[in-house]
């Protein structure tokens, strides 16, 4: 957990340092008063100071005795099965977004739901098929035709 806070504070510091650099390239003041770079610069400076303060606070915090288990650190990383599910969710979402335009909503949702349920541990294949059909073709019909919500139709007309 401590390492996580260090990394996060460091990431914030890099983000704010980058923002300070980019803001300084924008006009800070003009004839009417503050320019486009003024507010981001003030905010990024404040953020950078706070990120440094967080790092200092972490450095000064007493560390756990050597060899003693750190329950917070253990709790931070999920176990193997949970990690598989979480990575599966992220990868499947990314894959679905990548193919949504060429395949269209219905085919994308059909594959996405089928694979997602398998990743989440469902092994009732009839239920998987029915749910995937309902959430792909059924939801498309409801949203596209009844609620007039625009959803992508891919190169196969689906």
């Amino acid at each position, binding site marked *: 957990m401590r390492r996580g806070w260090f990394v996060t504070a460091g990431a914030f510091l890099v983000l704010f340092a980058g923002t300070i650099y980019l803001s300084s390239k924008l006009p800070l003041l003009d004839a009417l008063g503050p320019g486009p770079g003024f507010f981001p610069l003030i905010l990024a400076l404040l953020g950078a100071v706070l990120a440094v303060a967080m790092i200092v606070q972490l450095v000064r915090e007493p560390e756990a005795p050597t060899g003693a288990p750190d329950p917070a650190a253990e709790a931070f990383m999920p176990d193997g099965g949970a990690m598989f599910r979480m990575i599966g969710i992220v990868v499947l979402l990314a894959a679905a977004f990548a193919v949504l335009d060429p395949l269209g909503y219905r085919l994308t949702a059909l594959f996405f739901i089928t694979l997602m349920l398998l990743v*989440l541990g469902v092994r009732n294949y009839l239920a998987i098929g029915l749910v995937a059909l309902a*959430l792909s073709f059924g939801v498309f019909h409801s*949203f596209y035709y009844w609620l007039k919500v*625009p959803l992508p139709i891919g190169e196969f007309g689906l």
Partner: protein
Amino acid sequence: MFDTLQYLMAGFAAAMTPTNLMFAFIGCFLGTLIGVLPGIGPAAGTAILIPLTFQLDATGAIIMLSAIYYGAMYGGTITSVLINVPGEAASVITCLDGHAMAKKGRAGAALGIAAIGSFIGGLVATVLLVVVATPLSRLALSFGPPEFFALMIVGLVLVTSLAGNSLIAGVLMTVTGLLISLIGLDPVRGAPRFTFGIPELFDGFGFIPVVMGLFGVGEILATAEKPYREVIKTSLSGLIPSRDEWRRSMGAIWRGTGIGFFLGLIPGVGAIIPTFMSYIIEKRLSKHPEQFGTGVIEGVAGPETANNSYANGAMVPLLTLGIPSSPTIAVLMGAFIINGLTPGPLLFQERPDLVWAVIASFFIGNVLLLILNLPLVGLWAKILEIPYQYICAGTLLFCMIGAYSINQSIFDLWVMLGCGVIGYLLRKLNFPLAPLVLGLILGPQIEKSMRTSLEMSAGDFSIFVTRPLSACLLALSVAILVFAAMQLAPKEIRDPNAD
């Protein structure tokens, strides 16, 4: 006052048309469903359902989304009582006594008193909303840019200082939210900022994909690592509390109503604090405080009433000042903006028909919630038995539809996914997400107010302290920050149990 009543009557006439009644009913039903489903909170739930309102007129859309909001605030109670998992953060405290009552076979009474308390709290809070809305919006009309700037700073400072156990982390999240809101075209000069030549970034990051990512995908990822909880099989027949339970609950309900409404008026307080405060007060006032946590009905009645009273009270700063109190209210504000409306005092002048129809719909919505929740409690319990894997897959799909359909943009989907992963990691590290969301939605307005103020004073910053109201509000912000720093200073910044 006569004007207010006239407007309210006209609002009732609009809200009670068959279509608007139907929208309120659908909203209450979907909201309760969102509250019931674990892994999807009111903020993400309301955001996901925004596409459903695309074909509606502005009044119908806002009525439905408001109903989804307060429906979700009630729905979380059901999971707290039956599976000891709060459907949304405000129902955390209900787990203590609500679930203990369920284990004793009194789940019906716990859910019954929660529904009745929510009804009373919501109704009284809406009456109070009607009373304060007009004078407050008239007062707000006298505000200039410096006063609005100072008021929004107070709101952000409150959110920041109350959101978590580390003031530094809270302010960092607020600053990050404000900075993200600045991506895109500068609102005053129209110059592009931090767009890196990417056309999609000229309009900035969409608020809805960010909220769906942080609170929808992030929550799903967090829930995916937890084991699935069993629903308690208990009798739900005794929904009406016993005479003794009524006697013990009435005081808690009235106190919860007052606590919820008045804390709802303060921008930034959030829904958790009123419920915890109500619980603490009931425990202090009880002759048997040691019994709290073992299934005491006051421990359910007070917080649940405060929760719904807060939900209606929190509409006051949104409608009269244009300041959201919580991420869910910020989503509602986003829905107003999508419909071409800017919440705030001018809305009472420009669209009184819409504002009063929405306020009238709160009364109707509270009645609908009571009708929905008492007889249908068995249905909600059945929904809880749906395996979580199906809910998770369906929720992610609806997140995809919701984020895509606002701008028909694949880029928004990537934003949602990125925010989901970041939101999950920040949640694990106990960084508060509410300040980020409020910073994101208030950022453009804060910058615009600040720059307009400075243009008024030809760049002289003393304009913020020479105007009495602005000076008082800024002094209040400083006082809140100092007080919060003193409160939080002795604590470690990373206490996993602090929330």
